[in-house]
């Protein structure tokens, strides 16, 4: 029944413009909550277009692939990573220390492609290029696996990145938690027309917010990991609701949709991995 309802709502939301005004009750699976997996010592996660989840292990310094049965297989060795992104060929970009590495599909060894670039978030385009957020220098870079790089933003400390399904818009979560910026992605990958398109809910008092992780679903809804929980916004930037933290008061630092139908939301909390079924599949 849930699958039937999800299919119906997905059809409506993606084809008829009704991805707006959808409350959490139509996004969350009834009675489903966050579930803690047995996986730990994790430092980063990302998914590919087929729904495979890739996890960086800080203890083994390896990148493993999680299959639909929950079994992990190491795919890259000797590569500690604080951020990951998969390209359309199955290659993996890694932010490792102050360097950017790349491991081609099937190659267990990652090669350094850019030295001295300290990125905290990565996000790929279909053409194979990758954006990297470098908040310490308030910059966003665009690079490819050859190591060619270009600074495409020079004024914003952002700590999370996501690209819209049609690759027209780059979403970037600000380090101060005030905004998710939007940029128009130009044909050459440059980013223009910045605005503070999405305003995440902030704590009523006390600590400031942040947006350390972000992903999109197929209807271009924005899932932003924040200190209050995962905040879901419709494609026009309006808040649909806030998912509670998987492990209060800790909060997710990175999130991604994965699984056979990409309808499982994975969240990295501390070094642990949590999962939650969602009615709409991810991008």
């Amino acid at each position, binding site marked *: 029944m849930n699958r039937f309802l999800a299919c*119906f709502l997905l059809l409506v939301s993606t084809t008829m413009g009704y991805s707006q005004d959808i409350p959490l009750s139509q996004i969350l699976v009834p009675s489903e909550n966050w579930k803690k997996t047995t996986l730990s010592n994790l430092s980063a996660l990302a998914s590919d277009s087929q729904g495979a989840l890739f996890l960086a292990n800080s203890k083994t310094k390896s990148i493993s692939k999680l299959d639909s049965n929950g079994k992990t297989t190491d795919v890259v060795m000797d590569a500690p990573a604080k951020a990951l992104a998969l390209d359309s060929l199955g290659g993996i970009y890694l932010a490792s220390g102050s360097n950017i590495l790349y491991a081609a599909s099937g190659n267990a060894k990652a090669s350094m492609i850019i030295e001295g670039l300290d990125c905290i978030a990565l996000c790929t385009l279909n053409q194979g290029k990758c954006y990297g957020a470098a908040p310490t220098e308030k910059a966003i870079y665009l690079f490819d696996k050859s190591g060619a790089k270009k600074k495409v933003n020079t004024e914003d400390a952002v700590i999370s990145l996501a690209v819209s399904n049609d690759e*027209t818009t780059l979403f970037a979560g600000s380090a101060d938690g005030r905004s998710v910026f939007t940029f*128009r992605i130009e044909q050459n990958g440059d980013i223009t027309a910045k*605005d503070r398109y999405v305003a995440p809910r902030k704590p009523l008092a006390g600590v400031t917010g942040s947006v350390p992780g972000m992903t999109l679903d197929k209807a271009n809804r924005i899932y932003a990991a924040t200190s209050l929980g995962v905040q879901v916004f419709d494609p026009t*930037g309006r808040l649909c609701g806030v998912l509670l933290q998987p492990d209060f008061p800790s909060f997710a630092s990175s999130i991604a949709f994965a699984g056979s139908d990409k309808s499982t939301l994975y969240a990295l909390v501390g070094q642990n991995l949590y999962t939650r079924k969602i009615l709409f599949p991810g991008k």
Partner: protein
Amino acid sequence: MKRFLSCACFLALFCNFLIAADDYVLGIDSQPNPSTPKGKIEKSEWKSNIFPGTVREMLIYVPAQYDGKTPAAVMIFQDGSSYANEKGQFRATVVFDNLIHKKEMPVTIGVFLNPGTVPASNAKEKGRSNRSFEYDTPSDQYATFLEKEILPEIEKKYNVRKDPAGRALCGISSGGICAFTAAWERPDLFGKVLSHVGSFTNIRGGDVYPGMIRKTEKKPIRIFLQDGSNDLDNLHGHWPLANRSMAASLKFAKYDFVYVEGDGGHNGKHGGVILPESLRWLWRE
């Protein structure tokens, strides 16, 4: 069971509007009159810097009575093309023709602005709509856009009033709260607001206004609010309650305001029918 549920979902999503009575009929002031001089409409595209990368359509209505010597009033409509549509729910240019001719409102330049879109760099893709960001955000960005970009463009072309009482803002739904927000932020620029089924709800935090109105020294803004008892009730809020709350706060703070609630839903039928009397009230001396 599944078939029943899918039908129920479909009906719930698409047939909300059937609940409302909405049996409003446009009056004579909303109909073209062959003996009434007709204003001219100039169409252009506006590229904004305040909302970077956006483009939008702008229609400027110039009444036949405008002579260029006496400064005309200015009224800016959000979602402008729907207000300017002569076969739509509002038919604002027709109403302007009739009321200005009868001297029931001043000679007024109408500016009909659509929300911005950020065009995709790939022409095959759809651009990003900026409507909710521009209209629903309770900030001064839209007022700044009007101040720095639209008003100078109008003032470059036409002799218009620069006093806030000579400038009005109007909008429907998110455009309604947008009109209020711009005047609230810049009462030195805009002194009149007309809101139809205004979204004074928590789309982007706009539900704060009733509380703010009560605890802020009264601003020199004249406000006409319209809503319908069958308006939206969704995740963002309850539109009739939000508008009633706005009205109660405006009354508490002794504003010059009117709140009219019909039995319609989230559309411009009722607002369109009462547009002539709304404009007479808003523009009265």
